[in-house]
């Protein structure tokens, strides 16, 4: 199983990847820019994402909004920003491929002449509303901010979430847009994938026709950070929120995306919380019924990941009980590792998840997104098989070793989110934290 592709780099530095799949008369256009909130600095957070919004507001040669002509042509389209990258995609009927490439190339090459104060301040308001809706007004919505700001020091770019601080968003200035665009939005920092009903040669010709004229820029160097030291002892925090049930978050530093131990910890997360027979679900939710839900995840990122376990206490149960039960399961796993049956199940699930991602040519997580991810982070769009192999070659002992190395006691950030006015429900010794 693999994703066949052809890679061609235009003279201006733009990587072009073509994958043919003629099952339906549709083509996915997918562009990744290697920039995210990790390229921001304190006081200017949230800017990469705000910038993404401006990419939908029109460019020099078509300045009436980005959506209209594409939706009229039958496209679906979207974009997203995370800590490490920003992506934009359209899935268009075969007959609209020229249109999609014209639009994508126009905003890569000619965004700034169309930018106005009115657009900028309107999108700043939209983003502030996005922040209210998805973070401030959502139960447990501020927990993620509390976790990362405790895991990473203030000058580390993972110290804040991609949405950024509300004050920073308000303080964002239109002049910052220009510098950001010139530094990060150019062919040398981008990867374009066309996947679907398109011939390879035609795809390369079209990519060259629309993107070839855009001047090359200097590839920004990697973000250099001092790897944060794990906490010398557990950092215990409490956050009051408008919630009914207390929730516990436990986070550890863990190996970066694709680094040694990353896939193993992904599988450890599966052993712990994927499905009802996983260890934590079975113990906390199914058998003891002290939690209503539990989830473990390896959050893989370029500069370093974090492994997180989240559990919500059942009514009348305490976070201390929940924590004890989690730590007991982890201790057992560190001591004996997963069983052969558990490993078999997790590998079957991992293989299925790889296949699930091959079902669509476009959108978030489809084949075009996958090719661009491998190309952007590794320079190797053909990494699919090697990626799958990272999982297939995992052994029980390697999972155990990764867990022993990284899920260490007394090196955690532990956050209790409790109903307002009920700080006593937090784990003992937790320090109040405010996030807004």
């Amino acid at each position, binding site marked *: 199983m693999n994703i066949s592709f052809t890679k061609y780099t235009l003279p201006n530095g733009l990587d072009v990847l073509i994958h043919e799949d003629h099952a339906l008369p*549709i083509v996915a256009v997918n562009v990744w820019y290697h920039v995210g909130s990790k390229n921001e600095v304190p006081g200017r957070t949230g800017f990469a994402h705000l910038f993404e919004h401006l990419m939908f507001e029109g460019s020099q040669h078509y300045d009436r909004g980005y959506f209209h002509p594409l939706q009229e*042509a039958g496209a*679906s389209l979207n974009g997203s920003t995370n800590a490490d990258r920003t992506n934009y995609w359209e899935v268009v*009927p075969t007959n609209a491929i020229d249109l999609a490439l014209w639009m994508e190339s126009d905003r890569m090459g000619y965004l700034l002449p169309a930018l106005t104060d009115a657009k900028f301040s309107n999108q700043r*308001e939209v983003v502030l*509303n996005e922040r*209210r809706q998805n973070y401030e*007004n959502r139960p447990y919505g501020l927990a993620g901010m509390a976790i990362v700001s405790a895991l990473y020091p203030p000058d580390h770019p993972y110290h804040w979430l991609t949405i950024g601080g509300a004050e920073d968003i308000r303080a964002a200035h239109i002049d910052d847009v220009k510098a950001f665009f010139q530094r990060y939005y150019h062919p040398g920092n981008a990867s374009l994938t066309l996947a679907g009903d398109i011939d390879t040669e035609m795809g390369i010709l079209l990519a060259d026709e629309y993107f070839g004229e855009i001047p090359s820029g200097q590839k920004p160097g990697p973000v250099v950070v001092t790897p944060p030291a794990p906490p010398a002892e557990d950092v215990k925090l409490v956050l009051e929120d408008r919630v009914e049930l207390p929730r516990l978050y436990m986070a550890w530093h863990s190996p970066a995306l694709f680094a040694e131990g990353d896939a193993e910890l992904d599988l450890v997360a599966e052993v712990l919380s994927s499905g009802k027979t996983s260890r934590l679900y079975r113990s906390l939710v199914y058998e003891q019924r002290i939690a209503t839900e539990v989830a473990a995840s390896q959050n893989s990122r370029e500069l370093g990941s974090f492994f997180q376990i989240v559990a919500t206490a059942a009514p009348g149960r305490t976070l201390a009980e929940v924590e004890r039960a989690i730590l007991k399961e982890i201790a057992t796993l560190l001591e004996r590792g997963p069983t052969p049956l558990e490993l078999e199940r997790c590998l079957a699930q991992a293989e299925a998840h790889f296949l699930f991602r*091959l*079902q669509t040519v476009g959108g978030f997580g489809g084949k075009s997104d996958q090719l661009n991810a491998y190309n952007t982070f590794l320079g190797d769009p053909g990494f699919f098989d090697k990626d799958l192999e990272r999982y297939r070659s995992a052994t029980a002992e390697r999972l155990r070793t990764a867990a022993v190395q990284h899920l260490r006691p007394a090196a955690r950030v532990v956050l209790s989110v409790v109903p307002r006015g009920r700080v006593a429900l937090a784990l003992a010794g937790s320090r109040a934290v405010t996030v807004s």
Partner: protein
Amino acid sequence: MGADRTKLPTLGPEHPFTFPKIHRTTLANGLRICTVEHRQVPLVSVLALVPVGAAADPPERPGLAAITGDMLDEGSGDRSALDIHEALGRIGAQLDLDVGHDATVLGLTTLERYLDRGLELVRDMLIRPRFEQREFDRVRDLRLNRLLQLKDMPPSLADRAFTQLLYRHHPYGHLPIGSEGSLRNLMIRDISTFHRRAFLPARTTVIAVGDASHDSLTAAVVRAFEGWKAESGDPIAEPDTFPAPVPPATRLALVHRSGAAQSELRIGHVALARRSPDYHAALVANMILGGQFVSRINMNLRENKGYTYGARTSFEFRRAPGPFVLHASVQGDATADALREAIGEIRAIRGDRPVTRQELELGRASLTRGYPRSFETADQVARAAAQLALYDLPDDYFTSFVPTVLALKEDDVTAIAAKHIDPSRLLTVVVGDRDKILPSLKALELGDVADVSVA
């Protein structure tokens, strides 16, 4: 040589879309089987559709159908709840259990080589659930906890209030999850009784779509389901026998949430059923009004005013008439302005700003030109086939969709908007901070503001 930037490229010739062929078989016990070949990826999706959902809940037992659905994977046949999930995990299966207003759908996607094992699990969950007391107690607790948490979620509060006020004394008058009081009173035998009378082979359609031939897909479903004994359960009320919903007693309801940074809005009324001949025109009208990013309402509220991260409208099509509804979460201090603008847009499309030629073309194009991408995965194709079964639509429905929409004219769409969207009947629900927004709501001239608490 660069691109011509003086104008947008024109579109090439369109590629017509044809929905893949559906093969049908009916077993002696009445169970219907549909198969579709889908050979791109070595996966297979199986759906079991039983056209019985929350609308079939007895009035005093809201939530019964949903918790029955939830209990299907909690032990069946020879397998305990844990055994089922272990077996699902070992074939890498993705299980999806959904109970809506009209139907219960059990879906499973797995590797093609595990088709038989997947079907056997689906069969056992569907027809041999154990319904054990211990598992029921646990599942009910989880549901009650879920209800408790939903109390903190403005979208959920808004949906609940809107549903209850809009469909009083009606099978659609509650959310599928039900209410705390009802769940507490449920007994395990309510569930086994409901399952026995609702889940019958003659009501059920099993759809298999994936990387295998029609013959082998059909044979696998037959092997799994031919032993299901035909029984005569009780009749379930058909949607055409539902009473007409009683009009809401209020036009503007407020659910107080102190300190809310935003107000969650629902505006709408009961509209039309899925099988209505006006279906296609209503879809186009909705695209223009609020069904896509460039719709009138989103452009006004988000792109022009910046009140919200997004506003959208939809017709929720069901077997009996479902609601037309606007969804938005808006900045608290813009609540009344956002309502005024949204209601103004709803009024205008059937009043002084009827559908224009350009909007018609955009609406039709958005619905038709991207149509093929709705049928990319095996699961999408299976869910499409399930719609045909649930709403009793013809096999050429998906193939004829595009020409039917393209034949619509401005007047057709404006007329359908006028027929099915009625500003004088709109019910508005606001979840927000009463102290901050009440004075401005009163100024809206939507009548008294009814304070509503959502149980």
